[in-house]
């Protein structure tokens, strides 16, 4: 089965990382790529230019709290913002399936435009391809974005003692889309958090320019960020389970489905690592912004083997392992 691409390769877990390490890196090998940042820092522009791209294939196309258009803008904007760059321009390429109602396309474009206004970016060029029915699922969108570094690119390395914060509740997007896709009728309804984060991140970086690292906790959720930082920085990342904000309806849905909110995707949450003495300033800066009012300090980096651990609600410590492929609801 593993000689072919499976859906699990696209879930941001271990299989995805194998694909990057065994296929993409050997093929494209270069300095800017090998950093594997959310955005590439392009050396020909005096380290001032950040470039990123992302494709969006979400099903269903419309879900509570967002749609594929809002994701296509905020995903790319956020990839630029977490690298410390100010997002400026986006491209938009669409692959459309014959039969897609034009009215639906218009709604998606309106949503993209509204999100771009929120983020203060412009969609400046694009491309459209139409494929026959069955060759794609309604609409696939790719956006690329360029941004400028107004300050030094973030080190994206964390050190023992650093404090880790998240800008709000986790798991909202992953559970909202799963519920919409599988037609699970939760009350109150679960809503995606899809939003451009550049304003929030700008506020944080102005208050705490010493910020060491930022990530948007998309696929693989908070767990993926914790594991990645542990590995790239050679530290133990310890997350305090009870400190992580999770909405009650997301927590109940996760309990019912046997999922872990820490593994679930977010599209409007940033995870930050700052030196301990700036923790309070960082928390205050995040909370002052409307998108960060539920921000919390959730853990810290420790010297130790490079791994993510969870300090559980009963005070025990266990490994916080990367999710394995597609998250499926379990039975009881």
């Amino acid at each position, binding site marked *: 089965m*593993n000689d072919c691409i499976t859906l699990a390769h696209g879930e941001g877990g271990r299989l995805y990382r194998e694909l990057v390490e065994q296929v993409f890196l050997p093929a494209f090998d270069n300095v800017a790529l090998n950093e594997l940042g959310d955005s590439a820092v392009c050396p020909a522009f005096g380290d001032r230019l950040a470039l990123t791209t992302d494709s969006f294939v979400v099903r269903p196309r419309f879900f509570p709290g967002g749609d594929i258009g809002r994701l296509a803008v905020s995903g790319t904007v956020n990839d630029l913002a977490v690298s410390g760059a100010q997002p400026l321009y986006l491209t938009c390429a669409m692959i459309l399936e014959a039969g897609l109602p034009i009215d639906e396309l218009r709604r998606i474009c309106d949503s993209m435009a509204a999100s771009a206004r929120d983020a203060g970016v412009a969609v400046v060029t694009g491309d459209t391809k139409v494929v026959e029915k069955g060759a794609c699922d309604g609409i696939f969108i790719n956006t690329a974005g360029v941004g400028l570094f107004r300050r030094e690119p973030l080190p994206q390395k964390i050190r023992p003692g650093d404090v880790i914060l998240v800008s709000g509740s986790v798991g909202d997007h992953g559970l909202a889309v799963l519920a919409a896709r599988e037609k*699970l009728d939760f009350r109150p309804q679960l809503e995606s958090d899809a939003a451009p984060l550049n304003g929030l991140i700008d506020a944080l970086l102005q208050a705490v320019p010493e910020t060491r690292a930022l990530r948007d906790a998309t696929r693989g959720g908070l767990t993926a960020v914790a594991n990645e930082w542990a590995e790239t920085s050679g530290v133990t990342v310890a997350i305090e389970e*009870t400190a992580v904000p999770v909405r009650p309806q997301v927590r109940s849905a996760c309990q019912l489905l046997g999922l872990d909110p820490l593994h679930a995707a977010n599209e409007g949450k940033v995870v930050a690592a700052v030196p301990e003495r700036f923790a309070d300033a960082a928390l205050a800066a995040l909370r002052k912004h409307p998108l960060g009012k539920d921000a919390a300090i959730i853990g810290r980096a420790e010297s130790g083997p490079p791994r993510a651990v969870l300090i559980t*609600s009963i005070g*025990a*410590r266990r490994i916080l*392992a990367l999710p394995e*492929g597609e998250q499926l*609801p379990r039975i*009881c």
Partner: protein
Amino acid sequence: MADIYEDKKLIGKLTARIASALRHPLTIMEVCGTHTMSIAASGLRSLLPPELRLISGPGCPVCVTDSSLISAALALARLPRVTLTTFGDMLRVPAGEQSLQYLREQGADVRLVLSPLDALELAQQEQERQVVFFAVGFETTAPLTASTLELARELDLPNFSVLSAHKTMPAALRSLLGGGARVDGLLCPGHVAAVTGADNFDFVSRELGLPAAVAGFTPVEILLAVAAIVEMSAAGEAKLVNCYKRAVKPEGNPAAREIMERVFLPCDARWRGLGDLPGSGLAIRPEFAAFDAGKRFAAEIAAAPVYRDDPDCRCGQVLRGDISPRQCPLFGAACTPQHPCGACMVSSEGSCAAAYRYGEGSL
């Protein structure tokens, strides 16, 4: 979270009580996937003395489903007119090189449901499709399948049927523990006991001479039951105590049992790793034969290939508590949650998956 069921002080008192009562090394088995998960996710083992082993028995209904039944479900999913519905983690259980998930990616109509009633609703909405619900689970989920079958008969739905992999827990326990499994005490499954009644597990102490406790699912409730077993063992007693009284009555839930009896008949069933256990399965009664996918699609199932498990897979011994997941030669090498060889690695409730994800508390 100010939750008494996760209260750190209470947990400290209970672990101290367990440590002081423990006289000699002790192995306690739980037989419920939700226990497996709660123990692993909370890191409970790391708070207990190393001489106290908590092991997982055949409590994950997905894990104990034999590959012959998975092969039957695969055969149905391959039929162009069939929509196969089931619970989430059933999708990834391998049979040979195949799984329902694999077929779904290849375009088969396999859908996740949270309840058999969702499958029934689907059958009403899509009348041109044959909707099959692949039913797994113990006494906890069987009553819901039973009431769905009654509803299907009432509605006279021609395009809905159930492939039953339902099993019952006591028969399996009797065979497992009576057959010399190395276990000193049993954590009885709270959800199953809520239906069957706590008294249904009486035989563990009376006939098999093991201390047993019906346990809830929070860390505090699990520790309460473990403490009861450790203290009984130290005193040389073998009784059944109910440590989950907020949900489990001695007589259980008679209404749920009645509906199961109206729809199902006990039958012999094959358990992955445990083999054929007499009277441990639930077959659909002849009165409901029209809704029995095993009968409706008998020819298609008989004609389909039956996949065999990897011969090196030790799921059976893991399920019996003979070995820990790490002692299986495939564990972590050939068998991982991405590429599971056996069912214990598939379900997040499976003991191998829990051991792989959470490192068995070994930090």
